[in-house]
């Protein structure tokens, strides 16, 4: 049985706690990377992370991209949408097809 984690700055994620997801507020990049490693090693199937934080610890996230679990998913934080998540989808299309043929016009 897996659990779901939400990582990010406290203001962006405190609401998820009421839904029953485990929240892990972090402030620095180092802390976030350690937390991600730790969560991935424990029983967490999905890790939601705010886009702002994800941009800082891209390397750690990329490491888990080829693994089945955990799924690390970007969500917008309280400070707005950076477009990083949408970019991620475009990147995977680019990786598979060679160029972004689906969403290049928007």
């Amino acid at each position, binding site marked *: *049985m*897996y*659990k*779901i984690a939400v990582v990010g700055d406290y203001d*962006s994620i*405190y*609401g*998820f*706690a*009421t*839904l*029953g*997801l485990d929240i892990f507020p972090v402030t620095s990049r180092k802390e976030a990377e350690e937390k991600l490693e730790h969560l991935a090693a424990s029983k967490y*199937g*999905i890790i*939601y992370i705010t886009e702002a934080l994800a941009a800082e610890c891209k390397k750690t996230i990329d490491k888990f*991209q*080829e693994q*089945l*679990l955990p*799924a690390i*998913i970007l*969500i*917008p*934080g*309280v400070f*707005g*949408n950076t477009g990083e*998540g*949408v970019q*991620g*989808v475009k990147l*995977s*299309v680019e*990786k*598979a*097809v*060679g160029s972004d043929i*689906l*969403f290049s016009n928007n």
Partner: protein
Amino acid sequence: MASTQVNPTRMELTKQKKKLVTAIKGHKLLKDKRDELMRQFLDLARENMALRLKVEEGIKEANKNFVIAKAGMSEQTLNTALMAPKQEVYLDAGKKNVMSVDIPVFQSQTRTADANDIYSYGFAFTSGDLDGAVKSLADILPDMLKLAEIEKSCQLMASEIEKTRRRVNALEHVIIPETQQNIKYITMKLDESERSTQIRLMKVKDMMLEEAHHYKEKDRERAYGAG
């Protein structure tokens, strides 16, 4: 010219021919795999993008609601209200095999069946906005789980497609032409050596006949006799 040195022997020729057959068969299969993966991936990617936009919009709305809720209450009250969540979400993670790619299948379970357990506080000290904010976030949760499943599948399939595409290209542009070149080289070498053996045998035969019958001497004598 083949880049690798091959021995021009019959055994090597058979080996190379077998290799070519396997390579062509493999190439065809991998190409089929790539095409099918690509077809499924494109559908999935479209779905992924639509879902992501929806989830991002939902979270944005929820965040807005939370900010409003926070504005109407003191920080302490809010923190106390959210301190002890009643609900818990568990995840059943299975996997599905799509064209040899394992993609995750998530099934969520909540600890209690009551949908109202997301409100982990008494309603006396909190503003109504908070209820709305929590509700809006709860509404987007199923989509978030679906997004996690689809986005992860997309990532996994994308890297598999990339790998398969490389393999297809390597077979098509390197292995197959190289093997064909090798086969050609060996065939030509073998033909060449066969011809030279033939010539040698003819020459030897000539020499042996000469030794036995002395044709040249007789020719010369006949020439003198006539003259």
